[in-house]
């Protein structure tokens, strides 16, 4: 059975730039233009732009929108005012992670949730099924395009003023109205520009004209891995809990939300395993699914373009999870040494 891949409004531009297009979460997306390592370094040293229009946008509005989301999301929305955003988790009744997302508080009674592409339909159904009178849940994904402009020079190249992380405001870039969000997935300064789908081409062209490097999903993955941002479906899932994943800081355990009792119990008793970051100590590239001696597993692995070594994230028994612990990873039948490091694996110099 063949399935037609979805395309973002920028598809033809990616093809014209010579991008290598691959299927990702039901979408046909650019994995690289010139090369993953080159694009990765452009973001670390200058500025890069990613088409992330495949991500979903769920609009939740109404006098009881806040109440609905407080019951479904792990973080405490009382901590943010309109104009602020929050990294948070959609959890299930057993404390598993349905998705990780950013909630943008547009107004007292109006939120926009930006969710992973692969989970867009599932998240929407999950929240819609739990809708209460006085809240309206709508999948607005098709109305928007999203461009992540990331890197130390991103804000200056766009002609924007600096602003604190996890804030947002209505703005204009090259005459295109957009929501300028001070968020990202690379560990660098920058923003994510949410615009109407029909304006995406003009915005993309304007960003490239300012000397920003087009970057594909390949570099997005190596950047987030160096920054130790979990990828849903790899490092976190409905079968993993926030405490084991090191995301306890996103859980307001004083409030009531789906699965909170389980998450409280895991926190009290201590998790059986923990998600750790590691760096290879010999030449080898760890990959998702490889076994870690002693009962662990690699959940994300690649080559770090900045450190020029293999790096990864994986779950290990809590007794093996201390920073500095040596690990042995089964790399296609060969035992390879790695060492647990403090997160993030790579951090830009201040």
């Amino acid at each position, binding site marked *: 059975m063949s399935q037609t891949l979805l395309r973002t409004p920028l598809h033809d531009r990616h093809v014209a730039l010579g991008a290598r297009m691959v299927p990702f979460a039901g979408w046909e997306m650019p994995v690289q233009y010139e*090369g993953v390592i*080159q694009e990765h370094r452009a973001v670390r040293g200058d500025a890069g732009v990613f088409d992330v229009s495949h991500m979903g946008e769920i609009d939740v509005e109404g006098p009881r929108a806040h109440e609905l989301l407080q019951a479904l999301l792990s973080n405490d929305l009382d901590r943010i005012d309109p104009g602020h955003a929050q990294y948070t988790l959609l959890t299930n009744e057993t404390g598993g992670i349905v998705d990780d997302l950013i909630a943008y508080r547009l107004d007292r009674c109006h939120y926009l949730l930006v969710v992973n592409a692969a989970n867009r339909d599932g998240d929407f159904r999950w929240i819609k099924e739990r809708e209460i009178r006085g809240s309206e849940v709508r999948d607005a994904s098709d109305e928007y395009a999203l461009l992540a402009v990331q890197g130390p020079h991103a804000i200056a190249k766009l002609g924007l003023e600096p602003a604190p992380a996890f804030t947002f405001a209505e703005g204009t870039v090259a005459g295109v109205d957009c929501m300028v969000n001070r968020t990202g997935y690379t560990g660098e300064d920058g923003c994510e520009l949410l615009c109407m789908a029909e304006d995406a081409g003009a915005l993309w062209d304007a960003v490239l004209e300012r000397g920003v490097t087009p970057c594909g999903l390949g570099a997005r993955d*190596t950047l987030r891995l160096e920054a130790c941002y979990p990828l849903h479906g790899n490092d976190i899932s409905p079968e993993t809990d926030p405490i084991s994943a090191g995301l306890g800081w996103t859980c307001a355990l004083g409030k009531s939300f789906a699965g909170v009792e389980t998450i409280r119990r895991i926190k009290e008793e201590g998790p059986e395993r923990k998600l750790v970051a590691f760096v290879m100590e010999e030449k080898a*590239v760890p990959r998702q699914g490889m076994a870690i001696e002693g009962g662990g597993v690699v959940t994300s692995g690649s080559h770090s373009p900045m450190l020029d070594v293999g790096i990864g994230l994986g779950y290990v028994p809590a007794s093996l999870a201390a920073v500095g612990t040596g690990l042995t990873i089964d790399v296609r039948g060969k035992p390879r040494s790695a060492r647990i490091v403090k997160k993030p694996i790579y951090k830009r110099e201040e």
Partner: protein
Amino acid sequence: VNLAAAESYPDDLKYHPEHDWARVDGDEAVLGITWFAQDSLGELVHFEPPSEGSTVAKDASYGEVESVKAVSDVIAPLSGEVLEVNAAVVDAPETVNDDPYGAGWLIRVRLSDASEVESLLDAEAYREVLAEQ
């Protein structure tokens, strides 16, 4: 900035349809991967070589090359004993992207059956394999 090599398939090489080449010299051969193979993978970040002194068998994997995104077996176009591994590629795998038929060679072998060479493709026949991909 890495200036990637331009697409080419030199006439003096023999090719295996799994995108490997051999430069045969008497009872020895130098082996590597083709421009097409390195371009499909992207910038190489790791070469897992065989040990020197081990044997490689025609049509079987003798090592692995990895890019950021993918791992690929390297298929031996010919059988023989590994005389030398290109240490420069182990240290700097991107050498294969820069110069797949020169500095980016992978191993040198002593052939165990020189008649195997006859089964390999010339550059023109290999280009036809690529055209069908």
